[in-house]
């Protein structure tokens, strides 16, 4: 590896993703992050682990994206008073991750401006940490009152609208606290964590084979992205190569997932500006695609198809042709629908200038995925660090400049068309051969990384293996961690009735960040 290109001395981790690992003392964390930030790095994830069964203390982990790939920093922390320097001033999206790391593991960020709890509500008491190895996962504490100090906005005519956790539509649960004057939003504060169901602790009771199913349910709408990232991490840790046919099929599955999600959201975005025509048209096409998924791969959402070593089910040649035919039809219909959206004055009036995020703010806060690209950030793992089958796909990045709802809609249309192009290419030339390799059990302490450009943004799975094919620690990271704080910014100055529209234009995962 080229150490000169990195801000720390690091070792290359085995696996498909260009990932590097480095150990740092707590005092070295901030200088390293400052240097990384100056080099244009972005924060991918931050989490903690309990290393006491290995005769050490705790550890903080920070994953940063740099031009050559991913750098996984591990910072050992003592058993007594595990503390590390806060990095949320350098990478704002770290703030909630640091709070979650405290709630789950009791590792404390010094000098942090926000020490409020995040994932802990009333289900376990403060000072008790579920991800510590001596914590009994089955233990149930009595529910206690959940007090949370929201930031109060004061002034003449300011009032609050509390919304959730149970929302008015078919949406995941979370709480939104609006401070408004008239109809205008002065501040939005999110409170999430309602769906915390102990996913990370659960992984630690599983074998690597069992974990694949759970990884596919971290966020159901991104099941392919998570299953792939999980498989990639296991393959990295165990030194497994995936056969070319499996890699090509994985690419097909990921792009099918991207298309299905964009179809659904494009329908709802029409619905949210009172064009119910859009909902019915796009959801008809989405249903056509889901049925095609079911007929060809055996599952409408393509769950449990990507497994460590390859894919669980092959695609028959006539089914590949069938998928191409349906994709051709969907694409031509979506082109027609796009022109209807584009020429509809009422729709464009609601889409344009609404919920805008500037490129500067997006870069500073670490926005990811198609939302980042809609704010002018040229970043896509399929292009920046392509793994098979993307090396030869020449993905065109769907970049927009305005950063508003209209730009996110345009980016979704562009990505949908690009995905159909990629799928046609992959399906027409599927390599022959096996669809699975044998996966050897990684030895204890082996690590692996999976990093996948899901439909919403970059999904990371970081694995630290235990003995006998079990999991010592696994952190699945949804891009919603990065993007939720930007929703708070996107709504500022907009009117309350535009919130559902702005929210849907991002469509973030609650389950994926609540874990």
């Amino acid at each position, binding site marked *: 590896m080229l150490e000169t290109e990195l801000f720390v001395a690091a070792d290359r981790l085995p696996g498909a993703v260009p990932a590097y690992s480095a150990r740092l003392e707590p005092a070295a964390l901030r200088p390293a992050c400052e240097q990384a930030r100056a080099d244009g790095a972005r924060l991918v994830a931050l989490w903690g682990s309990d290393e006491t069964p290995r005769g050490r203390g705790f550890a903080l982990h920070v994953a940063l994206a740099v031009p050559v790939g991913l750098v996984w920093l591990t910072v050992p922390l003592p058993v007594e008073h595990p503390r590390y320097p806060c990095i949320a001033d350098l990478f704002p999206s770290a703030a909630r991750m640091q709070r979650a790391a405290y709630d789950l593991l009791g590792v404390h960020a010094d000098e942090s401006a926000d020490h409020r709890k995040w994932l802990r*509500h*009333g*289900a*376990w008491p403060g000072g008790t940490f*579920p991800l510590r190895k001596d*914590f*009994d*996962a*089955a*233990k*149930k*504490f009595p*529910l206690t009152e959940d007090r949370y100090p929201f930031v109060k906005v004061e002034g003449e005519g300011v009032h609050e609208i509390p919304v959730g*956790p*149970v929302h*008015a*539509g*078919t*949406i*995941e*649960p979370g709480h939104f606290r609006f401070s408004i004057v008239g109809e205008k939003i002065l501040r939005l504060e999110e409170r999430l*964590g*309602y*769906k*915390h*169901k*102990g*996913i990370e*602790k*659960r992984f630690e009771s599983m074998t690597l084979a069992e974990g694949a*199913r*759970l990884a596919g*349910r*971290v*966020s*159901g*709408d991104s*099941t392919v992205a998570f299953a792939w990232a999980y498989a990639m991490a296991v393959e990295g840790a165990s030194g497994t190569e995936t056969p070319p046919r499996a890699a090509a099929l994985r690419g097909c599955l990921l792009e099918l997932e991207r298309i299905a999600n964009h179809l*659904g959201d494009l329908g709802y975005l029409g619905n949210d500006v009172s064009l119910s*025509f859009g909902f*019915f*048209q796009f*959801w*008809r096409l*989405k*249903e056509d695609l*889901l049925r095609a998924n079911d007929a060809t791969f055996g599952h*409408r*959402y393509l*769950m449990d198809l990507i497994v460590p070593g390859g894919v669980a089910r092959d695609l028959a040649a006539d089914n590949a042709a069938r998928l191409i035919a349906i994709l051709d039809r969907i694409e031509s219909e979506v082109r*027609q*629908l796009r*022109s*209807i959206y584009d*020429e*509809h004055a009422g729709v464009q009036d609601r889409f344009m200038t609404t919920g805008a995020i500037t490129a500067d703010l997006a870069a500073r806060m670490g926005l990811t995925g198609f939302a980042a690209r809609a704010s002018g950030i040229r970043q896509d793992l399929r292009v920046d660090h392509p793994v098979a089958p993307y090396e030869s796909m020449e993905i065109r990045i769907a970049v927009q400049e305005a950063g508003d709802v209209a730009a996110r809609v345009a980016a979704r249309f562009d990505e949908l068309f690009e995905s159909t192009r990629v799928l046609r290419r992959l399906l027409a030339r599927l390599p022959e051969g096996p669809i699975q390799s044998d996966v050897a059990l990684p030895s204890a302490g082996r690590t692996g990384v999976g990093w996948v450009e899901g439909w919403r943004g970059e999904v990371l799975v970081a694995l630290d293996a235990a003995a006998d094919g079990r999991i010592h620690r696994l952190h699945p990271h949804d891009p919603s961690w990065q993007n939720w704080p930007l929703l708070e910014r996107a709504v500022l100055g907009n009117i309350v009735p535009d919130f559902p529209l702005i929210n849907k234009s991002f469509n973030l*995962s*609650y*389950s994926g960040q*609540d874990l």
Partner: protein
Amino acid sequence: MYQLLKQIAKVGIKTEAPPDADERLRVLSGELDAVVLKHFGRALAIRHVDAGSCNGCELEIHATNSPYYNLERLGIKFVASPRHADLLLVTGPVSRNMEEALRRTYEATPDPKLVVSIGDCACDGGVFGESYASCGRVANVIPVDVAVPGCPPTPTAIMQGILTAVSPRRK
């Protein structure tokens, strides 16, 4: 506008026949008598509560309103408040952070009320099970009339669960 109308005319009506009720999905022995159901029947207001799902089940609940399934044509519609609802459609395992909210939503729903749990996790805790953070199945927190398994259950299965809940129990 011409393009829009042309598209509607070209596509036509896609809605398919609804499924029949399925007694095997029933958990509680129908506390509502036939007289109530006769009035209640197919003019039903549903409040959806996601009590901790992975959001997979939500995708299929959305799909029940898509043109192929068109749940609303049966007089069954989703409402914004439990106070307007006859039936709660609950997904999850119930996270402990949602336990209180689910209970309160149930209490806010006027009697007589029905509960249909959607998905493997809502039926038995699924892949998440029970833990410090998860109550497991919905029936561990509120009474459930009909349970629809599946990961996620198809829109047809979800409709079947709802229709089972509002059909009189067959002897």
